[in-house]
Protein backbone atom coordinates (compact mmCIF):
# COMPACT_ATOMS: atom_id res chain seq x y z
CA UNK A 1 0.00 0.00 0.00
CA UNK A 2 2.68 2.45 0.99
CA UNK A 3 4.79 1.55 -2.01
CA UNK A 4 2.20 2.30 -4.63
CA UNK A 5 3.15 5.51 -6.35
CA UNK A 6 1.91 4.93 -9.83
CA UNK A 7 -1.02 7.14 -10.56
CA UNK A 8 -1.66 8.29 -7.01
CA UNK A 9 -1.84 11.91 -6.00
CA UNK A 10 0.34 13.13 -3.14
CA UNK A 11 -2.03 15.64 -1.60
CA UNK A 12 -0.14 18.73 -0.45
CA UNK A 13 -0.66 22.35 -1.44
CA UNK A 14 1.93 23.68 -3.87
CA UNK A 15 2.13 25.79 -7.05
CA UNK A 16 2.55 22.58 -9.05
CA UNK A 17 -0.60 21.07 -7.52
CA UNK A 18 -2.58 24.24 -8.19
CA UNK A 19 -1.54 24.49 -11.84
CA UNK A 20 -4.22 23.75 -14.43
CA UNK A 21 -4.37 20.02 -15.27
CA UNK A 22 -4.59 20.73 -19.00
CA UNK A 23 -1.44 22.84 -18.84
CA UNK A 24 0.31 20.03 -17.00
CA UNK A 25 -0.73 17.56 -19.70
CA UNK A 26 0.48 19.78 -22.51
CA UNK A 27 3.75 20.43 -20.68
CA UNK A 28 4.13 16.69 -20.15
CA UNK A 29 3.76 16.01 -23.87
CA UNK A 30 6.27 18.77 -24.76
CA UNK A 31 8.59 17.36 -22.09
CA UNK A 32 8.42 13.82 -23.48
CA UNK A 33 9.23 15.07 -26.98
CA UNK A 34 12.11 17.11 -25.57
CA UNK A 35 13.57 14.14 -23.70
CA UNK A 36 13.35 11.96 -26.80
CA UNK A 37 15.13 14.56 -28.96
CA UNK A 38 17.89 15.29 -26.45
CA UNK A 39 21.06 13.63 -27.70
CA UNK A 40 23.83 14.44 -25.25
CA UNK A 41 24.47 14.06 -21.53
CA UNK A 42 24.73 17.85 -21.28
CA UNK A 43 21.23 18.33 -22.65
CA UNK A 44 19.93 15.59 -20.33
CA UNK A 45 21.52 17.44 -17.42
CA UNK A 46 19.71 20.67 -18.33
CA UNK A 47 16.37 18.82 -18.51
CA UNK A 48 17.05 16.96 -15.26
CA UNK A 49 17.89 20.22 -13.50
CA UNK A 50 14.60 21.80 -14.59
CA UNK A 51 12.72 18.66 -13.55
CA UNK A 52 14.40 18.81 -10.14
CA UNK A 53 13.23 22.42 -9.78
CA UNK A 54 9.65 21.29 -10.46
CA UNK A 55 9.99 18.44 -7.94
CA UNK A 56 11.26 20.85 -5.27
CA UNK A 57 8.47 23.31 -6.04
CA UNK A 58 5.86 20.57 -5.66
CA UNK A 59 6.86 19.95 -2.00
CA UNK A 60 6.81 16.21 -2.61
CA UNK A 61 9.74 14.43 -0.95
CA UNK A 62 12.14 13.64 -3.84
CA UNK A 63 12.56 10.08 -2.54
CA UNK A 64 8.82 9.57 -2.91
CA UNK A 65 9.09 10.63 -6.55
CA UNK A 66 12.07 8.38 -7.18
CA UNK A 67 10.29 5.37 -5.72
CA UNK A 68 8.19 5.43 -8.90
CA UNK A 69 11.31 4.05 -10.58
CA UNK A 70 11.05 0.79 -8.62
CA UNK A 71 8.40 -0.41 -11.03
CA UNK A 72 10.65 -0.11 -14.07
CA UNK A 73 13.96 -1.14 -12.55
CA UNK A 74 13.89 -4.53 -14.29
CA UNK A 75 13.03 -2.94 -17.62
CA UNK A 76 15.81 -0.37 -17.25
CA UNK A 77 18.42 -2.97 -16.34
CA UNK A 78 17.37 -5.30 -19.15
CA UNK A 79 17.51 -2.44 -21.63
CA UNK A 80 20.95 -1.49 -20.37
CA UNK A 81 22.31 -5.04 -20.67
CA UNK A 82 21.00 -5.54 -24.20
CA UNK A 83 22.22 -2.15 -25.36
CA UNK A 84 25.71 -2.83 -24.01
CA UNK A 85 25.93 -6.37 -25.37
CA UNK A 86 24.59 -5.68 -28.83
CA UNK A 87 26.29 -2.33 -29.51
CA UNK A 88 29.37 -3.01 -31.66
CA UNK A 89 30.63 0.58 -31.40
CA UNK A 90 33.14 1.58 -34.05
CA UNK A 91 34.76 -1.82 -34.31
CA UNK A 92 37.58 -3.42 -32.32
CA UNK A 93 40.33 -1.12 -33.69
CA UNK A 94 38.80 2.19 -32.61
CA UNK A 95 37.55 1.22 -29.16
CA UNK A 96 39.72 1.52 -26.08
CA UNK A 97 37.83 -1.29 -24.40
CA UNK A 98 36.67 -4.26 -26.40
CA UNK A 99 35.58 -7.65 -25.16
CA UNK A 100 33.97 -10.07 -27.52
CA UNK A 101 32.24 -13.34 -26.80
CA UNK A 102 30.11 -15.03 -29.43
CA UNK A 103 27.61 -12.64 -30.95
CA UNK A 104 28.00 -10.23 -28.00
CA UNK A 105 30.60 -7.65 -27.10
CA UNK A 106 31.25 -4.99 -24.50
CA UNK A 107 32.77 -1.72 -25.68
CA UNK A 108 33.09 1.88 -24.53
CA UNK A 109 30.46 3.23 -26.94
CA UNK A 110 28.05 0.54 -25.85
CA UNK A 111 28.47 1.37 -22.17
CA UNK A 112 27.96 5.06 -22.87
CA UNK A 113 24.83 4.42 -24.96
CA UNK A 114 23.48 2.13 -22.23
CA UNK A 115 23.99 4.80 -19.58
CA UNK A 116 22.34 7.36 -21.85
CA UNK A 117 19.30 5.15 -22.37
CA UNK A 118 18.94 4.64 -18.61
CA UNK A 119 18.96 8.43 -18.16
CA UNK A 120 16.31 8.75 -20.83
CA UNK A 121 14.08 6.09 -19.26
CA UNK A 122 14.42 7.68 -15.82
CA UNK A 123 13.51 11.13 -17.15
CA UNK A 124 10.61 9.69 -19.15
CA UNK A 125 9.18 8.01 -16.04
CA UNK A 126 9.80 10.74 -13.47
CA UNK A 127 8.27 13.55 -15.56
CA UNK A 128 4.83 12.00 -16.08
CA UNK A 129 4.92 10.68 -12.50
CA UNK A 130 5.05 14.31 -11.39
CA UNK A 131 1.80 14.92 -13.27
CA UNK A 132 -0.02 12.04 -11.56
CA UNK A 133 1.48 12.92 -8.18
CA UNK A 134 0.16 16.46 -8.34
CA UNK A 135 -3.16 16.10 -10.18
CA UNK A 136 -6.41 14.60 -8.90
CA UNK A 137 -7.86 11.91 -11.15
CA UNK A 138 -10.98 14.00 -11.64
CA UNK A 139 -8.92 16.93 -12.93
CA UNK A 140 -6.97 14.53 -15.12
CA UNK A 141 -10.16 13.10 -16.58
CA UNK A 142 -11.33 16.66 -17.32
CA UNK A 143 -8.01 17.53 -18.92
CA UNK A 144 -8.17 14.47 -21.16
CA UNK A 145 -11.73 15.28 -22.09
CA UNK A 146 -10.69 18.83 -22.97
CA UNK A 147 -7.61 17.87 -24.95
CA UNK A 148 -9.39 15.14 -26.90
CA UNK A 149 -12.43 17.35 -27.52
CA UNK A 150 -11.70 17.65 -31.28
CA UNK A 151 -12.25 13.87 -31.55
CA UNK A 152 -15.88 14.40 -30.54
CA UNK A 153 -16.44 15.53 -34.11
CA UNK A 154 -15.81 12.00 -35.32
CA UNK A 155 -18.01 10.55 -32.55
CA UNK A 156 -15.25 9.30 -30.26
CA UNK A 157 -16.65 8.89 -26.71
CA UNK A 158 -14.19 11.36 -25.20
CA UNK A 159 -16.00 11.74 -21.89
CA UNK A 160 -15.91 7.98 -21.40
CA UNK A 161 -12.12 7.93 -21.93
CA UNK A 162 -11.62 10.48 -19.18
CA UNK A 163 -13.97 8.64 -16.84
CA UNK A 164 -12.33 5.26 -17.53
CA UNK A 165 -8.89 6.64 -16.77
CA UNK A 166 -9.99 8.39 -13.62
CA UNK A 167 -11.68 5.24 -12.28
CA UNK A 168 -8.72 3.05 -13.25
CA UNK A 169 -6.41 5.31 -11.23
CA UNK A 170 -8.86 5.36 -8.35
CA UNK A 171 -8.98 1.53 -8.28
CA UNK A 172 -5.21 0.90 -8.22
CA UNK A 173 -4.76 1.06 -4.42
CA UNK A 174 -7.96 -0.93 -3.85
CA UNK A 175 -6.88 -3.74 -6.17
CA UNK A 176 -3.40 -3.67 -4.71
CA UNK A 177 -4.84 -4.21 -1.25
CA UNK A 178 -7.00 -6.98 -2.65
CA UNK A 179 -3.95 -8.71 -4.16
CA UNK A 180 -2.28 -8.71 -0.76
CA UNK A 181 -5.40 -10.15 0.81
CA UNK A 182 -5.71 -12.96 -1.76
CA UNK A 183 -2.02 -13.78 -1.41
CA UNK A 184 -2.30 -13.92 2.36
CA UNK A 185 -5.36 -16.12 2.13
CA UNK A 186 -3.48 -18.52 -0.12
CA UNK A 187 -0.37 -18.44 2.04
CA UNK A 188 -2.58 -19.42 4.96
CA UNK A 189 -3.59 -22.48 2.97
CA UNK A 190 0.01 -23.42 2.23
CA UNK A 191 0.77 -21.63 -1.04
CA UNK A 192 4.36 -20.52 -1.56
CA UNK A 193 5.26 -17.33 -3.39
CA UNK A 194 8.90 -17.00 -2.38
CA UNK A 195 10.30 -20.44 -3.14
CA UNK A 196 11.53 -22.12 -6.27
CA UNK A 197 12.79 -20.66 -9.50
CA UNK A 198 11.32 -17.72 -11.40
CA UNK A 199 8.95 -19.90 -13.41
CA UNK A 200 7.59 -21.61 -10.30
CA UNK A 201 7.02 -18.23 -8.67
CA UNK A 202 5.21 -16.88 -11.69
CA UNK A 203 3.16 -20.08 -11.79
CA UNK A 204 2.17 -19.55 -8.16
CA UNK A 205 0.70 -16.16 -9.10
CA UNK A 206 -1.90 -17.62 -11.47
CA UNK A 207 -4.22 -18.73 -8.63
CA UNK A 208 -3.91 -15.18 -7.26
CA UNK A 209 -4.86 -13.50 -10.51
CA UNK A 210 -8.04 -15.48 -11.07
CA UNK A 211 -9.83 -14.48 -7.84
CA UNK A 212 -8.48 -10.97 -8.29
CA UNK A 213 -10.01 -10.80 -11.74
CA UNK A 214 -13.37 -12.08 -10.51
CA UNK A 215 -13.43 -9.62 -7.66
CA UNK A 216 -12.53 -6.76 -10.01
CA UNK A 217 -15.54 -7.64 -12.15
CA UNK A 218 -17.75 -7.77 -9.07
CA UNK A 219 -16.42 -4.40 -7.92
CA UNK A 220 -17.06 -2.82 -11.29
CA UNK A 221 -20.66 -4.08 -11.25
CA UNK A 222 -21.12 -2.56 -7.79
CA UNK A 223 -19.49 0.68 -8.85
CA UNK A 224 -21.68 1.02 -11.92
CA UNK A 225 -24.77 0.55 -9.71
CA UNK A 226 -23.49 3.20 -7.30
CA UNK A 227 -22.73 5.61 -10.14
CA UNK A 228 -26.10 5.10 -11.78
CA UNK A 229 -27.92 5.56 -8.51
CA UNK A 230 -26.09 8.87 -8.12
CA UNK A 231 -27.68 10.01 -11.40
CA UNK A 232 -24.68 9.34 -13.65
CA UNK A 233 -25.94 9.63 -17.15
CA UNK A 234 -22.88 9.17 -19.34
CA UNK A 235 -21.78 12.74 -18.64
CA UNK A 236 -24.82 14.35 -20.29
CA UNK A 237 -25.63 17.68 -18.65
CA UNK A 238 -22.86 17.21 -16.11
CA UNK A 239 -21.37 20.30 -14.49
CA UNK A 240 -18.16 20.61 -12.50
CA UNK A 241 -17.47 21.73 -8.96
CA UNK A 242 -13.91 22.78 -9.81
CA UNK A 243 -13.92 24.47 -13.18
CA UNK A 244 -10.49 24.32 -14.84
CA UNK A 245 -9.10 27.77 -15.53
CA UNK A 246 -5.92 28.69 -17.41
CA UNK A 247 -3.98 31.29 -15.44
CA UNK A 248 -1.09 33.45 -16.56
CA UNK A 249 1.36 31.16 -14.77
CA UNK A 250 -0.03 28.15 -16.64
CA UNK A 251 0.40 29.87 -20.00
CA UNK A 252 3.90 31.02 -19.11
CA UNK A 253 4.85 27.49 -18.04
CA UNK A 254 3.60 26.08 -21.32
CA UNK A 255 5.52 28.72 -23.29
CA UNK A 256 8.61 27.91 -21.28
CA UNK A 257 8.27 24.18 -22.08
CA UNK A 258 7.90 24.96 -25.76
CA UNK A 259 11.00 27.13 -25.49
CA UNK A 260 12.91 24.29 -23.84
CA UNK A 261 11.96 21.97 -26.69
CA UNK A 262 13.15 24.56 -29.18
CA UNK A 263 16.40 25.04 -27.24
CA UNK A 264 17.12 21.30 -27.25
CA UNK A 265 16.36 21.11 -30.98
CA UNK A 266 18.83 23.93 -31.61
CA UNK A 267 21.39 22.09 -29.49
CA UNK A 268 20.89 18.90 -31.48
CA UNK A 269 20.77 20.28 -35.01
CA UNK A 270 22.66 23.57 -34.63
CA UNK A 271 20.95 25.11 -37.66
CA UNK A 272 22.77 28.42 -37.33
CA UNK A 273 26.23 27.01 -36.46
CA UNK A 274 26.44 28.86 -33.13
CA UNK A 275 29.65 28.24 -31.26
CA UNK A 276 28.22 27.66 -27.78
CA UNK A 277 26.18 24.73 -29.08
CA UNK A 278 29.35 22.65 -28.98
CA UNK A 279 29.22 22.98 -25.17
CA UNK A 280 25.69 21.62 -25.12
CA UNK A 281 26.74 18.76 -27.37
CA UNK A 282 29.28 17.52 -24.83
CA UNK A 283 28.78 13.84 -24.23
CA UNK A 284 26.78 13.27 -27.39
CA UNK A 285 25.87 9.65 -27.88
Amino acid at each position, binding site marked *: *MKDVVFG*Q*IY*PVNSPVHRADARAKFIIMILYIVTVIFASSFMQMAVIALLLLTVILMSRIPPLKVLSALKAIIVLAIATFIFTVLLNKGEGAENESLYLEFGPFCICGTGLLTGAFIICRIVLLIVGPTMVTLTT*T*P*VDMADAIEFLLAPLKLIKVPVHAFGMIM*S*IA*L*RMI*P*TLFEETQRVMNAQKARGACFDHGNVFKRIGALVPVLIPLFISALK*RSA*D*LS*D*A*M*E*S*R*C*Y*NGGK*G*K*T*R*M*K*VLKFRVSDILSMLFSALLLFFILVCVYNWWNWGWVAFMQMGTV
Partner: protein
Amino acid sequence: MDRSAEKIIRVSNAVYKYNRDTEDEVTALRGISFEIAEGEFVALVGANGSGKSTLARLLNALYIPDEGDVFVSGINTASDKNEDILAVRRTVGVVFQNPDNQMVASIIEDDVAFGPENLGLPPAEIRERVDWALECVGMADHKKGTPFRLSGGQKQRIAIAGVLAMRPRVMVLDESTAMLDPRGKKEVMDVVERIRSEAGVTVIMITHFPDEAARADRVIALSGGRVAMDMPSSAALSDVEALRSIGLDAPLPARIAYELRKRGLSMPEGITTPDGLTEALCRIKN
Protein backbone atom coordinates in the same frame (compact mmCIF):
# COMPACT_ATOMS: atom_id res chain seq x y z
CA MET B 1 -53.42 11.31 -9.34
CA ASP B 2 -52.90 14.03 -6.77
CA ARG B 3 -49.21 13.88 -5.95
CA SER B 4 -49.43 15.65 -2.61
CA ALA B 5 -51.61 12.86 -1.22
CA GLU B 6 -49.27 10.20 -2.56
CA LYS B 7 -46.95 8.40 -0.14
CA ILE B 8 -43.31 8.99 -0.99
CA ILE B 9 -42.81 5.30 -1.67
CA ARG B 10 -45.45 2.87 -2.79
CA VAL B 11 -44.60 -0.67 -3.77
CA SER B 12 -47.53 -2.68 -5.05
CA ASN B 13 -47.31 -6.37 -5.70
CA ALA B 14 -43.74 -6.19 -6.97
CA VAL B 15 -42.24 -9.35 -8.43
CA TYR B 16 -38.60 -9.55 -9.48
CA LYS B 17 -36.79 -12.45 -11.09
CA TYR B 18 -33.08 -12.75 -11.81
CA ASN B 19 -32.11 -14.34 -15.15
CA ARG B 20 -35.69 -14.18 -16.31
CA ASP B 21 -36.76 -16.75 -18.93
CA THR B 22 -33.57 -18.78 -18.62
CA GLU B 23 -32.82 -22.05 -16.87
CA ASP B 24 -31.28 -20.27 -13.88
CA GLU B 25 -34.34 -18.16 -13.19
CA VAL B 26 -34.50 -17.18 -9.51
CA THR B 27 -37.48 -15.34 -8.13
CA ALA B 28 -36.15 -12.85 -5.57
CA LEU B 29 -39.38 -11.00 -4.81
CA ARG B 30 -42.77 -12.74 -4.96
CA GLY B 31 -45.29 -9.95 -4.73
CA ILE B 32 -44.32 -7.28 -2.23
CA SER B 33 -46.57 -4.42 -1.20
CA PHE B 34 -46.04 -1.60 1.28
CA GLU B 35 -46.13 2.16 1.53
CA ILE B 36 -43.75 4.49 3.27
CA ALA B 37 -44.71 8.04 4.25
CA GLU B 38 -42.33 10.98 4.23
CA GLY B 39 -40.27 11.26 7.44
CA GLU B 40 -40.59 7.62 8.51
CA PHE B 41 -37.62 5.60 9.76
CA VAL B 42 -38.15 2.07 8.50
CA ALA B 43 -35.93 -0.94 9.06
CA LEU B 44 -36.13 -3.62 6.40
CA VAL B 45 -34.97 -6.91 7.89
CA GLY B 46 -34.67 -10.41 6.53
CA ALA B 47 -32.31 -13.37 6.37
CA ASN B 48 -29.84 -13.78 3.50
CA GLY B 49 -31.66 -14.36 0.24
CA SER B 50 -34.91 -12.87 1.48
CA GLY B 51 -34.82 -10.21 -1.23
CA LYS B 52 -33.74 -7.16 0.81
CA SER B 53 -31.00 -5.92 -1.50
CA THR B 54 -33.11 -6.57 -4.59
CA LEU B 55 -35.77 -4.36 -3.05
CA ALA B 56 -33.23 -1.57 -2.48
CA ARG B 57 -32.39 -1.62 -6.18
CA LEU B 58 -36.08 -1.54 -7.10
CA LEU B 59 -36.58 1.65 -5.07
CA ASN B 60 -33.85 3.39 -7.06
CA ALA B 61 -34.95 2.25 -10.53
CA LEU B 62 -31.75 0.23 -10.89
CA TYR B 63 -34.07 -2.74 -11.37
CA ILE B 64 -37.57 -2.53 -12.78
CA PRO B 65 -40.11 -5.00 -11.33
CA ASP B 66 -41.18 -7.81 -13.66
CA GLU B 67 -44.72 -7.55 -12.32
CA GLY B 68 -46.39 -4.94 -10.15
CA ASP B 69 -45.20 -1.36 -9.74
CA VAL B 70 -42.91 0.81 -7.67
CA PHE B 71 -43.89 4.46 -7.29
CA VAL B 72 -41.49 7.07 -5.93
CA SER B 73 -43.34 10.29 -5.08
CA GLY B 74 -45.93 9.32 -7.65
CA ILE B 75 -43.55 8.44 -10.48
CA ASN B 76 -43.58 4.88 -11.75
CA THR B 77 -39.98 3.59 -11.87
CA ALA B 78 -40.91 1.57 -14.97
CA SER B 79 -41.25 4.83 -16.91
CA ASP B 80 -39.14 4.83 -20.07
CA LYS B 81 -38.61 8.59 -19.91
CA ASN B 82 -35.09 9.47 -18.87
CA GLU B 83 -36.24 12.51 -16.83
CA ASP B 84 -38.54 10.29 -14.76
CA ILE B 85 -35.72 7.89 -13.91
CA LEU B 86 -33.46 10.78 -12.94
CA ALA B 87 -36.25 12.26 -10.80
CA VAL B 88 -36.60 8.90 -9.00
CA ARG B 89 -32.87 8.69 -8.37
CA ARG B 90 -32.80 12.29 -7.17
CA THR B 91 -35.54 11.48 -4.65
CA VAL B 92 -34.14 8.17 -3.42
CA GLY B 93 -30.42 7.91 -2.67
CA VAL B 94 -28.86 4.52 -1.93
CA VAL B 95 -25.79 3.87 0.20
CA PHE B 96 -24.45 0.42 -0.63
CA GLN B 97 -22.70 -2.19 1.46
CA ASN B 98 -19.04 -1.86 0.48
CA PRO B 99 -17.72 1.69 0.79
CA ASP B 100 -14.71 0.91 -1.45
CA ASN B 101 -16.97 -0.05 -4.33
CA GLN B 102 -18.98 3.16 -4.42
CA MET B 103 -16.21 5.76 -4.48
CA VAL B 104 -15.70 7.30 -7.87
CA ALA B 105 -12.86 9.72 -7.17
CA SER B 106 -9.67 9.54 -5.12
CA ILE B 107 -10.17 12.89 -3.41
CA ILE B 108 -12.94 12.96 -0.84
CA GLU B 109 -14.58 16.21 -1.90
CA ASP B 110 -14.45 15.18 -5.57
CA ASP B 111 -16.26 11.99 -4.71
CA VAL B 112 -18.97 13.80 -2.77
CA ALA B 113 -19.33 16.25 -5.68
CA PHE B 114 -19.99 13.43 -8.17
CA GLY B 115 -23.76 13.28 -7.55
CA PRO B 116 -24.46 17.04 -7.61
CA GLU B 117 -22.26 17.36 -10.72
CA ASN B 118 -24.42 14.77 -12.46
CA LEU B 119 -27.49 16.85 -11.54
CA GLY B 120 -26.00 19.72 -13.55
CA LEU B 121 -25.92 22.25 -10.71
CA PRO B 122 -23.83 25.44 -10.91
CA PRO B 123 -20.31 25.12 -9.39
CA ALA B 124 -20.97 27.43 -6.43
CA GLU B 125 -24.00 25.41 -5.36
CA ILE B 126 -22.12 22.12 -5.72
CA ARG B 127 -19.36 23.49 -3.49
CA GLU B 128 -21.91 24.59 -0.91
CA ARG B 129 -23.67 21.21 -0.90
CA VAL B 130 -20.39 19.27 -0.68
CA ASP B 131 -19.24 21.33 2.31
CA TRP B 132 -22.64 20.94 3.95
CA ALA B 133 -22.77 17.17 3.38
CA LEU B 134 -19.25 16.62 4.72
CA GLU B 135 -20.09 18.78 7.73
CA CYS B 136 -23.23 16.67 8.36
CA VAL B 137 -21.27 13.42 8.50
CA GLY B 138 -18.42 15.02 10.47
CA MET B 139 -15.76 14.56 7.80
CA ALA B 140 -15.17 18.20 6.84
CA ASP B 141 -11.56 18.08 8.07
CA HIS B 142 -10.70 15.36 5.57
CA LYS B 143 -12.20 16.90 2.45
CA LYS B 144 -8.93 17.38 0.55
CA GLY B 145 -7.57 13.97 1.54
CA THR B 146 -7.83 10.55 -0.05
CA PRO B 147 -10.20 7.92 1.29
CA PHE B 148 -7.70 5.05 1.15
CA ARG B 149 -6.21 5.46 4.60
CA LEU B 150 -9.50 5.99 6.40
CA SER B 151 -11.34 3.46 8.55
CA GLY B 152 -14.39 1.61 7.21
CA GLY B 153 -16.75 3.77 9.26
CA GLN B 154 -15.19 6.97 7.93
CA LYS B 155 -15.36 5.68 4.34
CA GLN B 156 -18.99 4.79 4.76
CA ARG B 157 -19.71 8.26 6.17
CA ILE B 158 -18.19 9.72 3.01
CA ALA B 159 -20.42 7.48 0.92
CA ILE B 160 -23.37 8.82 2.92
CA ALA B 161 -22.18 12.39 2.29
CA GLY B 162 -22.04 11.58 -1.43
CA VAL B 163 -25.71 10.63 -1.37
CA LEU B 164 -26.66 13.45 1.02
CA ALA B 165 -25.14 16.09 -1.27
CA MET B 166 -27.83 15.24 -3.80
CA ARG B 167 -30.41 16.29 -1.18
CA PRO B 168 -32.55 13.16 -1.52
CA ARG B 169 -35.88 12.95 0.31
CA VAL B 170 -35.36 9.25 0.98
CA MET B 171 -32.11 7.56 1.91
CA VAL B 172 -31.82 3.79 1.57
CA LEU B 173 -28.95 2.18 3.48
CA ASP B 174 -28.35 -1.23 1.94
CA GLU B 175 -26.56 -3.13 4.74
CA SER B 176 -24.28 -0.15 4.97
CA THR B 177 -22.95 -1.18 8.36
CA ALA B 178 -22.49 -4.90 7.63
CA MET B 179 -18.76 -4.58 6.94
CA LEU B 180 -17.97 -2.28 9.87
CA ASP B 181 -16.71 -2.95 13.37
CA PRO B 182 -18.91 -1.93 16.34
CA ARG B 183 -17.34 1.52 16.50
CA GLY B 184 -17.82 2.11 12.77
CA LYS B 185 -21.42 0.90 13.08
CA LYS B 186 -22.10 3.37 15.84
CA GLU B 187 -20.50 6.24 13.89
CA VAL B 188 -22.68 5.52 10.87
CA MET B 189 -25.86 5.02 12.88
CA ASP B 190 -25.31 8.29 14.75
CA VAL B 191 -24.85 10.10 11.45
CA VAL B 192 -28.02 8.53 10.06
CA GLU B 193 -30.01 9.64 13.06
CA ARG B 194 -28.61 13.16 12.84
CA ILE B 195 -29.49 13.39 9.14
CA ARG B 196 -32.98 12.21 9.93
CA SER B 197 -33.59 14.77 12.64
CA GLU B 198 -31.77 17.70 11.03
CA ALA B 199 -32.46 17.27 7.31
CA GLY B 200 -35.78 15.48 7.73
CA VAL B 201 -34.80 12.68 5.36
CA THR B 202 -36.91 9.53 5.23
CA VAL B 203 -34.64 6.61 6.08
CA ILE B 204 -35.02 3.02 4.93
CA MET B 205 -32.40 0.90 6.59
CA ILE B 206 -31.77 -2.59 5.30
CA THR B 207 -30.06 -4.74 7.90
CA HIS B 208 -29.89 -8.16 9.42
CA PHE B 209 -28.81 -6.80 12.77
CA PRO B 210 -31.92 -6.61 14.96
CA ASP B 211 -30.21 -4.21 17.39
CA GLU B 212 -29.94 -1.63 14.64
CA ALA B 213 -33.52 -2.18 13.57
CA ALA B 214 -34.55 -1.26 17.13
CA ARG B 215 -33.62 2.35 16.34
CA ALA B 216 -36.29 2.49 13.62
CA ASP B 217 -39.97 3.35 14.12
CA ARG B 218 -41.27 0.57 11.93
CA VAL B 219 -39.99 -2.81 10.85
CA ILE B 220 -40.79 -4.57 7.60
CA ALA B 221 -39.52 -8.15 7.66
CA LEU B 222 -39.04 -10.07 4.44
CA SER B 223 -38.95 -13.81 4.12
CA GLY B 224 -38.59 -15.76 0.90
CA GLY B 225 -39.42 -12.70 -1.19
CA ARG B 226 -42.61 -11.86 0.70
CA VAL B 227 -43.47 -9.39 3.46
CA ALA B 228 -43.64 -11.48 6.65
CA MET B 229 -44.20 -8.65 9.13
CA ASP B 230 -44.96 -4.96 8.86
CA MET B 231 -45.52 -3.28 12.21
CA PRO B 232 -44.04 -0.81 14.73
CA SER B 233 -40.52 -1.85 15.62
CA SER B 234 -41.17 -2.57 19.31
CA ALA B 235 -43.94 -5.03 18.40
CA ALA B 236 -41.99 -6.65 15.58
CA LEU B 237 -38.68 -7.03 17.39
CA SER B 238 -40.13 -8.37 20.62
CA ASP B 239 -41.92 -11.17 18.77
CA VAL B 240 -39.12 -13.67 19.25
CA GLU B 241 -40.96 -16.65 17.77
CA ALA B 242 -42.12 -14.90 14.62
CA LEU B 243 -38.60 -13.59 13.97
CA ARG B 244 -37.11 -17.02 14.57
CA SER B 245 -39.52 -18.58 12.08
CA ILE B 246 -38.09 -16.32 9.32
CA GLY B 247 -34.49 -17.02 10.29
CA LEU B 248 -33.74 -13.92 12.38
CA ASP B 249 -32.71 -13.41 15.98
CA ALA B 250 -34.60 -10.89 18.07
CA PRO B 251 -32.42 -8.31 19.89
CA LEU B 252 -30.82 -9.77 23.03
CA PRO B 253 -33.04 -7.81 25.52
CA ALA B 254 -36.16 -9.09 23.72
CA ARG B 255 -34.86 -12.66 23.91
CA ILE B 256 -34.09 -12.34 27.63
CA ALA B 257 -37.58 -10.97 28.29
CA TYR B 258 -39.03 -13.83 26.25
CA GLU B 259 -37.13 -16.51 28.19
CA LEU B 260 -38.05 -14.91 31.54
CA ARG B 261 -41.69 -14.82 30.50
CA LYS B 262 -41.53 -18.52 29.55
CA ARG B 263 -40.29 -19.27 33.05
CA GLY B 264 -43.30 -17.56 34.52
CA LEU B 265 -42.00 -14.07 35.23
CA SER B 266 -44.48 -11.38 34.26
CA MET B 267 -42.71 -9.16 31.75
CA PRO B 268 -44.41 -6.40 29.76
CA GLU B 269 -44.60 -6.79 25.96
CA GLY B 270 -42.53 -4.73 23.58
CA ILE B 271 -39.08 -4.88 25.21
CA THR B 272 -36.38 -4.40 22.57
CA THR B 273 -33.66 -2.27 24.17
CA PRO B 274 -31.35 -2.75 27.18
CA ASP B 275 -33.01 0.27 28.83
CA GLY B 276 -36.48 -1.22 28.43
CA LEU B 277 -35.33 -4.52 29.94
CA THR B 278 -33.61 -2.84 32.88
CA GLU B 279 -36.71 -0.84 33.67
CA ALA B 280 -38.96 -3.91 33.56
CA LEU B 281 -36.60 -5.89 35.82
CA CYS B 282 -36.35 -3.05 38.36
CA ARG B 283 -40.13 -2.87 38.52
CA ILE B 284 -40.25 -6.58 39.45
CA LYS B 285 -37.79 -6.07 42.25
CA ASN B 286 -39.87 -3.34 43.80
